[in-house]
């Protein structure tokens, strides 16, 4: 375990040096990343200029939800977005190199490309998260602070799981599926509102199939004093979700045939 961390740290260092070779471009891209995600916030902001609540949520409650979801996504993204380049790794044979090395494959895949410009997006998530927490008007107690932390961890686990599924599917299709965007960027985009505003069917899917509601809607109800105490425990579902994702990855791995190029 310690050894793996060291390896990752080494990858990190190499990638960082290579990013720093093009400083101006790096900084401009960071600024770009920072600004891009403001669109979602502005969309919510202007909707609430016109409407004062949605499905019983006020602006500040939605902001809390948005901040937490964005933060969950950003944490996951900084860890696991490396899977995005996985289709090209299979196509150009880099994955074959990885297979012959006596180290964990996932670790190596993630180390191949670390996108440091995401720091702009992470910064933006931190800003939105702090804004959401400050705006929320929640009476903070130890239990509630714990709930938020648990949500962040569980949510990050869930999104990591989804990135892993995206990569695992590439074993079978050899190319990335655009449809997976719904589960990643779509979830970030539509996670700005608590999932129940989209209606009962969506809530059902998001509870039992892809458990977004467990890391967002239910614990949020607890934070807003609208739900039972045990909703706090539900983000654990995010960790459980990792199991089938990892299973799919293993299955794909055993199914892998080099494309030979």
């Amino acid at each position, binding site marked *: 375990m310690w050894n793996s961390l060291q390896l990752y740290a080494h990858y990190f260092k190499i990638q960082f040096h290579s990013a720093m070779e093009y400083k101006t471009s790096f900084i*401009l891209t960071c600024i770009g990343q920072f600004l891009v995600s403001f669109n*979602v916030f502005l969309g919510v902001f*202007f909707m609430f200029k016109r409407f004062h609540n*949605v499905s019983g949520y006020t602006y500040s409650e939605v902001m809390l939800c948005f901040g937490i979801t964005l933060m969950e996504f950003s944490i996951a993204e900084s860890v696991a977005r490396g899977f995005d380049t996985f289709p090209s790794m299979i196509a150009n044979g880099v994955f074959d190199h990885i297979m012959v090395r006596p180290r964990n494959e996932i670790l190596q895949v993630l180390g191949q490309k670390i996108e440091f410009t995401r720091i702009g997006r992470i910064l933006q998530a931190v800003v939105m998260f702090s804004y959401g927490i400050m705006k929320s008007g929640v009476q903070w107690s130890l239990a509630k602070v714990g709930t938020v932390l648990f949500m962040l961890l569980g949510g990050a686990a869930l999104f990591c799981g989804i990135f892993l599924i995206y990569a695992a599917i590439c074993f079978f299709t050899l190319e990335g599926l655009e449809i997976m965007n*719904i589960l990643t960027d779509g979830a970030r985009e539509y996670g700005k509102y608590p999932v129940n505003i989209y209606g009962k069917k969506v809530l059902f899917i998001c509870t039992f199939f892809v458990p977004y509601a467990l890391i967002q809607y239910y614990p949020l109800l607890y934070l807003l004093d609208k739900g039972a105490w045990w909703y706090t425990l539900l983000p654990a579902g995010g960790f459980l979700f990792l199991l089938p994702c990892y299973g799919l990855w293993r299955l794909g791995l055993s199914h892998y045939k080099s494309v030979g190029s």
Partner: protein
Amino acid sequence: MKKYFSFFKLRFSMGLQYRTAAFAGIATQFVWGSMEILMFRAFYEADASAFPMTLQATCSYVWMQQAFLALFMAWFMENEIFDSIVDGNISYELCRPINVYDMWFARSTANRFSRAILRCFPVLIFSAFLPAPFGIMAPVSVSAFVWFLITLILGALVTIAFCMLVYMTCFFTVSSLGVRMVAVSVVEFFQGGVIPIPFFPEKLQKVMELLPFASMQNVALRIYSGDLAGVQMKKAIILQVFWLVVLVAIGKGINRLAMKKIVIQGG
């Protein structure tokens, strides 16, 4: 003119080849569209009187937006063009007796339209069968439909003319990623891609409608649902033509400047 038209034809038939990719894209667009509509429904239920358009018109707007995504989304730029500037392949283009700006313009137009044509019908047909307020409605009148088609094309051309400016900046900065990202999110927001322009507060809306971005998807989608008609519509169309001319003029100007200064660094 003929050579640019053949560029258009070439690209157009190339774009029509990617049917599987189109299929996956269509499925994605259904889900995005549905989620968007469910969101608007929630706001509609919260306060119907604050809704600036009818729910039916809003839903049509969302479906049309999904169907013609390829025409208006600024992020749908051509990496080939950026790459050719960075890796020097542009030198081949410069050897040809053609204008780079015009060629790229023809190429982008073909790419966007072939993609849109491949993708629009399934979305349109499917959404036509959805129950009353949530599906797409029939156009309010024949003349509105004709105007819709005209402004759809005009809007796409304005979008392409704007993207051309972004390609042009690449001549001066080499790494265009930052500029590109900012440009994309500005376009997305101001053309009514995040929420339709009528949903903004009145004062802001007045300003937004004058910007070139409002001449992109906003006009066509609102004419279709009958939200924009009469004098308002005419004004919007005149503005579209105005911005198209201005953006193309600026683009050509920058192009001329870039061609004078361009240095191909071997390779």
